[in-house]
């Protein structure tokens, strides 16, 4: 018998480390593939993409402000994140469930490296969410009516939420290995806390600890007046994600210098972001001053279009063409001096109460001045054209909002007759979406009001060919726009049946 010389242990140590990293990456790749192909995540992504397509086709009536469009990408990735949480947790506890844990303990890959691989396996799902977010935002930005600026930090929130929720599932799997019921219950709690409970309104420092803070109001603000600590919030989310991931690694027994450094870095990022975003949640004196200036004495950029002047916040200057087109259409129908009168269309906002406030702008008392808001498209078009028509007929917006006599017929005909579907525009511009009876007519500032008789006359006018009515409007312009003209007289001048009911100007 010959002795066998066994040589050992010399080549083991050095290659093992390297193989550890490669093995972690290989496991992460494998788990990422399984994660992305798992049924909950597939369904979540399918629902997410369907939602993007369904919503973005009609969002903001085709005229998005990109500083709002970036925030609109944030809430839906949370549902994807919950699905990722569910499956990431399941993947971590899988070996425990199937009793294969002892088999893994003889492999070169220690538990903490396997946990690191599970945490890494969430990253591709977050990247896929980022692709969806970028797709949604790009779609908005490519719409012809898009204006403003998006914020990369706001766009990062959605994918970071997926990352946070995913690594939370990994951590939960490490902490409660035998408790398969922990993840579904955590999902319900997160649903309650963040998805259903995200009430818009007072955004204080503490509410910014939630992954998504959606301050959505009816009005858009210029992007420099938003006052959202978006960059700090993104840093906070990234720090939290890193922290949770490395905490899971530590729980699994990882104590290497890299893990400790990473944990310290993540903690520092989360705390820094958390503190600074809390500080940024309350508007600074400079921001408050800027908001007040923008509300009272805004610095607008003015552009001339066909005799009239259009003044807008710098981000809205590209939209002055669209405003000018509407104002020109309305003015071309007017007669008398109003036909060529130069108008001053000024954009006005009330930014004093922040982006989530519902504010109203008082009517301007300056002659021949029309107010336009920050939103456009859809109902905003007939609303603006009604304001232009009221100023042309009554002289000022304030006087226009007080019209109760027969001049209202002229105002509404000027506002609506040039539109593609005047009757639909009439329905949309009225608050109760009706075409009969009395109603409030919306405008960018104070609303106008129509009586039942005026509505009947306007409806009859809109059913007639616009050219004939247009000639009569121009011919009788002085009498039609004289204060005190009755609706019956206006109907007579314009050649339609008199209304059943008289005006009520009390």
């Amino acid at each position, binding site marked *: 018998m010959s002795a066998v010389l066994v040589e050992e242990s010399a080549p083991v140590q050095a290659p093992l480390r390297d193989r550890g990293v490669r093995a972690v990456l290989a496991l992460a790749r494998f788990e990422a593939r399984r994660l992305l192909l798992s*049924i*909950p995540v597939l*369904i979540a992504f399918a*629902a997410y993409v369907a939602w993007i397509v369904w919503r973005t086709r009609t969002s903001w009536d085709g005229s998005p402000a990109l500083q709002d469009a970036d925030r609109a990408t944030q809430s839906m990735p949370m*549902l994807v994140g*919950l*699905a990722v949480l*569910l*499956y990431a947790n*399941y993947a971590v506890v*899988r070996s425990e*469930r*199937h*009793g294969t844990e002892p088999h893994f303990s003889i492999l070169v890959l220690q538990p903490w490296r396997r946990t690191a691989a599970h945490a890494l396996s969430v990253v591709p799902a977050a990247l896929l969410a980022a692709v969806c977010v970028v797709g949604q935002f790009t779609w908005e930005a490519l719409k012809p009516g898009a204006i403003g600026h998006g914020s990369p930090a706001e766009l990062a929130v959605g994918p970071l939420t997926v990352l946070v929720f995913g690594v939370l599932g990994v951590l939960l799997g490490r902490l409660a290995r035998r*408790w*398969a*019921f*922990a*993840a*579904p*219950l955590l*999902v*319900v*709690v997160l*649903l*309650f806390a963040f998805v*259903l409970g995200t009430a818009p309104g007072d955004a204080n420092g503490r509410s910014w600890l939630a992954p998504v803070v959606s301050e959505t109001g009816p009005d858009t603000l210029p992007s420099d007046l938003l006052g959202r600590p978006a960059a700090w919030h993104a840093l906070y989310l990234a720090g939290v994600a890193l922290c949770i991931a490395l905490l899971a690694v530590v729980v699994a027994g990882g104590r290497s210098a890299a893990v400790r450094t990473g944990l310290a870095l993540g903690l520092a990022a989360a705390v820094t972001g958390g503190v600074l975003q809390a500080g940024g949640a309350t508007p600074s004196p400079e921001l408050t001053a800027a908001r007040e200036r923008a509300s009272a004495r805004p610095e607008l950029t003015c552009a001339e279009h066909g005799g009239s002047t259009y003044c807008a916040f710098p981000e809205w200057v590209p939209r002055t063409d669209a405003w000018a087109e509407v104002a020109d259409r309305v003015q071309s129908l007017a007669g008398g001096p109003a036909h060529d009168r130069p108008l001053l269309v000024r954009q006005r906002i009330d930014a004093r109460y922040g982006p989530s406030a519902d504010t109203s702008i008082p009517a301007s008392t300056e002659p021949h001045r029309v107010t336009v808001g920050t939103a456009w498209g859809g109902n905003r078009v007939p609303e603006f054209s009604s304001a232009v028509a009221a100023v042309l007929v009554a002289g000022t917006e304030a006087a226009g909002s007080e019209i109760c006599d027969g001049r209202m017929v002229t105002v509404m005909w000027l506002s609506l007759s040039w539109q593609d579907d005047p009757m639909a525009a009439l329905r949309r511009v009225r608050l109760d979406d009706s075409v009969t009876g009395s109603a409030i007519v919306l405008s960018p500032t104070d609303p106008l009001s129509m009586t039942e008789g005026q509505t009947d006359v306007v409806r009859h006018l809109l059913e007639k060919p616009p050219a004939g009515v247009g000639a009569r409007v121009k011919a009788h312009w002085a009498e039609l726009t004289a204060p005190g003209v009755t609706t019956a007289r206006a109907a007579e001048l314009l050649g339609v049946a008199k209304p059943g009911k008289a005006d009520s100007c009390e």
Partner: protein
Amino acid sequence: MRVTAVRGVTPDLVGPVWRTLPWRALAAAGILGLLVAATPLVTGGEPAPWQTLLLLRGIALIGALGLAFLLDDPARHLTAPLPTPRPVRQALRVALVTPIAALWWAAVLLLTPSASRPPVGEVTLEAVAVGVLALAAAALAVRLTDEARPGPFVAAVLLLTAVLAPLLAPEGWALFAQADDPRWPAAHDRWAVLAVGAAVAGALCGPEPLGRGARRIRGAGAPV
């Protein structure tokens, strides 16, 4: 003959079945549900009726997630040849848990603010329907797979359904109507139908498939 056998065996079964119930899942769901229910009481908030209804529906979902683990039986491959058929054992599990679940739901209802509490009977019907749905899904998973503990799958399916159903269910069904909605009574007829349908489906899934029909999908996690 068979009935007497069932009657004879059941008392002896109660003890072991009681011990093997997934107590941790049930306790976790129960405690979490009570905590959520007590939130308005603790924080002193006065939720609007729709918020209380949402809260109760959420708690019903939490309870149902606990019940999704009820039919998990790590020993199912050993108990298959027992003289007591599986439907009896499953029914026993459900019967043992029902009084506890009823007490728990009563406590949840008492914890929610009475001022904004929706009609108790109808909300209870919704909770029962969701619970029965969870049990039926668990029974279906047991019936169709070889998986000893399908709880996590069932819970995931239930969660997915709970998130997608309000989004995808036809508006006309009004399953998730508010209490002041005129369709509220009709919606609860539908909830009742849903509960009965789920119960029947769950019961049909009970018997162990034997003989020629014993074809099962091999679950992803089936023991190798």
